[in-house]
């Protein structure tokens, strides 16, 4: 029972880990992309459609990543190419992605697919308790942790990470040093989209093997809050996502145990928790802003 519960918590947190660490990279480069929800939905619908069409959930996974990246490309075109307001463009991306995924996915409603297979890691999977919890997942779950590690390593220990942070913290200086601010941001945004797409793909490929309109149910927004919660540090995303996964699962566990609280109030928990966490993090300005990219949301363009 407890094993099953923890397992569900981990699985619930995977989409958040993907989406939030992708957004974290984009934000570290100075771009605030509020379109995470839209990119996740595009990833989800593409993954489902391809998995159904080809019968291969693995191809679906790639399709999800690709669709997310492509959707992020639209955002990049407007905010970087045409220097539009990032907040409003991100909203537009969410509205657009929600609509287009619903339109594309309309014929897919009610269909079912085989999800991603579990990959038991040799030896490790046989460890009692821990083996079941950590080493009997699908490939996406392992990838999520690998990507967090990769993000953390790139940000803190590589030249690429240094350039990325320079662009996010002071785009004028980075530009003066000869780095192409817009190219760096373009890559970061596309990476963020790919990760959001993978997070979205996890929903139909693993969590619930069907497609439903707006099936992300606000996860994209929670991922955005997670980035603040993690104060722009990749490993903290992992912890934060597990906390949120736990809160989401709490409502199911509560219902199963016959708590008398109306289910709607339990369903509010993830959203209320997001607000409370945001308050707790933001009230301590120094902590909240220590790793916050100084140029976040500010527009840069090289002109005459």
């Amino acid at each position, binding site marked *: 029972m407890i094993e099953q519960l923890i397992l569900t918590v981990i699985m619930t947190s995977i989409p958040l880990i993907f989406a939030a660490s992708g957004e974290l990279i984009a934000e570290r480069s100075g771009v605030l992309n*509020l379109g995470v929800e*839209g990119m996740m939905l595009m990833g989800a619908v593409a993954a489902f459609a391809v998995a159904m069409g080809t019968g291969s959930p693995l191809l679906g996974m790639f399709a999800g990543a690709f669709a997310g990246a492509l959707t992020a490309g*639209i955002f990049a075109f*407007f905010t970087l*190419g*045409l*220097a*539009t*307001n*990032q*907040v*409003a*463009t991100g*909203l*537009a*991306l*969410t*509205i*657009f*992605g*929600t*609509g*287009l*995924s*619903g*339109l*594309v996915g309309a014929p897919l409603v009610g269909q079912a697919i085989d999800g991603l297979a579990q990959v038991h890691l040799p030896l490790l999977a046989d460890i009692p308790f821990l083996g079941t919890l950590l080493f009997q997942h699908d490939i996406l779950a392992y990838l999520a942790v690998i990507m967090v590690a990769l993000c953390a390593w790139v940000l803190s220990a590589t030249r690429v990470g240094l350039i990325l942070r320079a662009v996010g913290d002071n*785009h*004028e200086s980075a*530009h*003066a040093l000869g780095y192409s*601010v817009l190219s760096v941001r373009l890559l970061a945004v596309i990476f963020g989209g790919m990760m959001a797409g993978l997070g979205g793909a996890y929903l139909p490929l693993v969590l619930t093997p069907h497609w439903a*309109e707006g099936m992300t149910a*606000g996860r994209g*927004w929670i991922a*955005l*809050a997670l980035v*603040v919660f993690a104060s722009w540090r990749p490993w903290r995303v992992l912890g934060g996502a597990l906390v949120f996964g736990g809160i989401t699962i709490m409502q199911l566990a509560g219902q199963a145990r016959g708590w008398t609280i*109306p289910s*709607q*109030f339990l*369903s*509010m928990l993830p*959203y*209320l928790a*997001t*607000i409370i966490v*945001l*308050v707790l993090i*933001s*009230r301590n*300005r120094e902590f*909240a802003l220590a790793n916050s990219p100084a140029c976040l949301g*500010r*527009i*840069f*363009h*090289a*002109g*005459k």
Partner: protein
Amino acid sequence: MISLIPRKDIPLALTVMTPIMAIAITLFVGAIIFATLGYDPLEALYQFFVAPVSRSDQIADLFVKACPLIIIASGLIFCYRANIWNIGAEGQLILGAVFSGYVALTFPGLPAWAMIPLMVIAGIFGGMLWAMIPALLKTRFNTNEILVSLMLTYVAALLIDWIVRGPWRDPMSFGFPLTKMYVDAALISRIELPGIGYLGQLHWGVVGALLLALCAWFVLDRMLVGFQVKVMGAAPRAGRFAGFSPTFVTFMVLGISGAAAGIAGMVEVSANIGQLQPEISFGYGFTAIIVAFLARLNPLAVIGAGLVVALAELGGDSAQITLGMPKVVTGVFKGILLFMLLAGETFNRFHVEIRPSRSSAAKSVEVQN
């Protein structure tokens, strides 16, 4: 390489043409998407934008559909002018509906002259209450108002769901999640035009919406508070030097937009539904964001913008019925329209040049948005 050169002056024609061009390009892109998905693009556009307004009563219904959008957008303009990103109008609308519903359902015996005004006040109170939470958290704890206002929308949706399934459910509703019907005094009546009679569902709330847009224009363009809002948005440092309080402006703009959304919730239920149910708004709170931008954050233009976007909403219904498209297709149009409007803003402020390569003399120019 796209290069942007700031314009020295912005010709008026350009200002007017920007939204029109945005709409035209949106239609074009929409047609391409329809064609790609295997629909006849011309037929689809016809069902979307012409069929819903081919009779006079349908045009009246267009105003009815635009009513909540105009009301909400008139409030949102204050937020966006002040650079405060309230995207939770949907939740504020729900709270407005719930509070006004409380008045209508708890005091059905109120005299007719008191009922509607009290419901409006309750609606304003509910919407403001919900909007005060992000305002308080932002000013007190520096919490991001975008995420808080959005999260509260989910909470509000669950709250009304619980209310109509639980404590306020009509025992006679055969298990449906509905409250009692409002008494007649709590319903906004339809307009009887002299010589024509009733036209579609045209109701007095539409008149209220037009008046509200006018009020918003007056406050924003003719009063000191409106000037404060604009200064705090365009040049916060200058505003602080002038002695304007960012805290006050944050509370005020969120309060105004919450109040507007609350009124919209009250009007929507009282004029069109007549009782509370789990779904009282079809994303009006989000759609109004696009209306505000289509109006280029100008309260008077909100009326026209509200009608244009309402047409897309009605078109979605029509396309759903005649072409079997899912309702969300309107979202595609709305998203593209918002993209195009934002891009139009850039073309308005900059001379956009597409050059093969970057000139070595390029130096960075920072644009504060």
